[in-house]
């Protein structure tokens, strides 16, 4: 039996026809990726003073879907009111108890264990409440599809941050460090 299967993994959207065994393997992989408790990662601005404003992270995020630009990017860098003041990096900080999930009327945004959210696009009706609820401004909008753009914590952007301004960090490790 063939299943038509669409999913996001490591930030990539994939669609394929798979058999039942293949499907199970994928599901397990996805489960491990999203539910792994000790290994839950999030993207963090490690040192905003090191940011040179090159926007490579923004380009990297949209490049995942085969585009040049940043209309699919879940990260933004802009000057803090003039370049002399440095830059601001806006990206989902994977809040515990995230406000965006609280206001979602259709349960499209689900809390991720360890912080942050997972978006189920099929459930999303594009009301935009989540974006309004995020006072960090870290939920961006995909005007083409009328859906929110939420960071998937895949770390693709960080791979291109030559100056180590952003990086993928383990949620647990960070929590311990804060204590």
């Amino acid at each position, binding site marked *: 039996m063939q299943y038509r299967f669409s999913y996001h993994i490591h930030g990539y959207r994939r669609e394929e026809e798979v058999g039942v065994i293949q499907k199970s393997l994928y599901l397990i992989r996805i489960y491990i990726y999203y539910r792994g408790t000790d290994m839950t990662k999030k993207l963090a601005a490690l040192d905003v003073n090191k940011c040179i404003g*090159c926007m490579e992270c923004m380009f990297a995020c949209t490049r995942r879907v*085969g585009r040049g630009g940043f*209309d699919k990017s879940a990260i933004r860098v802009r000057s803090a009111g003039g*370049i002399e003041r440095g830059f601001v990096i806006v990206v989902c900080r994977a809040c515990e108890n995230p406000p965006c999930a609280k206001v979602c009327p259709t349960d499209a945004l689900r809390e991720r264990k360890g912080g942050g959210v997972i978006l189920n696009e099929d459930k999303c009706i594009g009301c935009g409440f989540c974006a309004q609820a995020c006072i960090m401004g870290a939920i961006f909008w995909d005007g083409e599809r009328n859906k929110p753009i939420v960071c998937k914590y895949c770390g693709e952007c960080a791979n291109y941050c030559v100056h180590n301004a952003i990086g993928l960090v383990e949620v647990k490790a960070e929590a311990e460090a804060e204590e």
Partner: protein
Amino acid sequence: MLLTKAKEMNRVLYIDLTKKDNKIEDREDLFDEYLGGSGVAIKLLEEECPKGVDPLSAGNPIIFAVGPLTALYPSASKTVAMFKSPLTGNLGESHTGGRSAMAIKLAGYGAIVIKGSSDIPLYLAIHGDEVKFKDASSIWGIEAVAVGRILREVEPGAGVRTIIRIGRAGEKMVRYACAVCETYRHFGRLGLGAVMGSKKLKAVVISADKSIEIPKEKRKEYKKVYDEIQDVVVETDAMEKYHDLGTAGKIYEMNKLGGMAYKNLESASAPEEIAREFSGENIAEKYLSRRVSCAHCPVGCIHLASLRELYEPGYYFKTSTIPYDNETIYALGFMLGMKSAEDYLRLIDMVDRIGMDAISTGVTLAWVTEAYERGIITKEHTDGLEFHWGDVQVYSEAIEKIVGMPNEFYQNLAKGVEHASSVYGGQDYALAFGGNEMPEYHTGIACYLNNLTGARHSHLDSAGYDLDQKLIGKEFTLEEVVKGLLKEEEWRQILSSLVVCFFARKVYSAERIIKALDAIGIENWTEEKLEDLGSVIHRAKMDFKFREGFDLAKLRIPKRIFEVPTPHGILKEGDIRKAIEIYGEMIFYSHSSSKL
């Protein structure tokens, strides 16, 4: 919004400031054949710029062009501006980075042509397909930095836009006024600011609202090629050379080599303590506050200094952020005999705010100082100012007067050193080539051939200073030098058509360019084809120059450069004239439509 077909990325936006009207045309024909950037810009200039037009009249077009690699590959971050230069009266071409290239491309344009002249001060707000003419009367007369600050708040598109604007120098049509881009980047040379001023165009805001789709079958390859280029950008010496200390990092060595024009080329190296004061190391240690980059370039070569100074008794301090680099240290530091880096920073801050090209300003003021010391220029001319080397206060006042133009002398200074020296004398030490004030290098014959024959009379045309340094201790013939320069200038036409930053020139080899183009669906380019195109674009520029009256035989060469030894010894005028002749023959024979 998505740009999928090549033709959507090859749109040219035509703006008419006289009629306050605009239209968009697909110019696939141009982009297919000439890639983009310089290649497309020179063709648009041929179409739009009538022969013999006054550069400060409505007939002179401004062309901004980006290229096929823009927004798609790292360090493809520059915009080419083309116009007829009010400084040289001939081809004007200037490049800038900042966010300009990304913004133009992702607003959906390959090039923007601005024609006509407005009756009232205007600024253009281009947000994707929407083009608005906005009244700029209230920001007319305001300095370039503040205009950016104001428009940043009025216009949308924070983070994904460019704000190109002029200062008071541009409004007053100082012939070497620049256009400032994102506060710290400039279309510096050849007077784009004056052309904008003549059109009453105070600023152009362009914001991005689109992205470019990579053909499905190419996506894997695109990512692979992208990563390869990214790795090379990060791993070549570009990072170290341009990020760590920036271009200022080579100041000390250049001075030690004896290739650095000091005090209007009184000598080719400054005393040791001056060289140490202006070295990249010293400025970085004392003043460097931040390094930033252009959009989509990981290098971060832009160095910003922070200067805290007491400006009034009673603990009134101000802290200014000031960009510095190699060429401005030369022009406003070495050329003017400055003694401290702090004074140099003050001058660059002033030049930046007022919106003038730092190199032309420095060289012009250096000529004034020497002419004043020799008695050709007196206090009568200077409106009371006494020029002495290193006097930052007088230089600041002089810059203010060049823009204010209180008398005929300053009106003449505002037309550049070539013009001023033709009025007052002292041409032997008026250091301009082809009408453009000279860059720092006094390294040998190649740098001066570069200044004389380069299409823009800019050191970046054919990098003669680089060739000079490579030839130290070697035997060479004039033919070899000319050939080397011509080959370099032709190849750089490809880089500036793609448009990639010259700092990444080692990354973008022919092989990688072909791969990069192929991976985004622009196929069938070969190394040979690229090289041919480089020479075609170069000849097109030279043709434009000849059309506008450029004559290799009539190039003025200031005597001063033959009086001071270079690292290659004293230069001979005969050699340079001979080499120019060889250059003429080379471009004439290889392209029959060139007229000599």
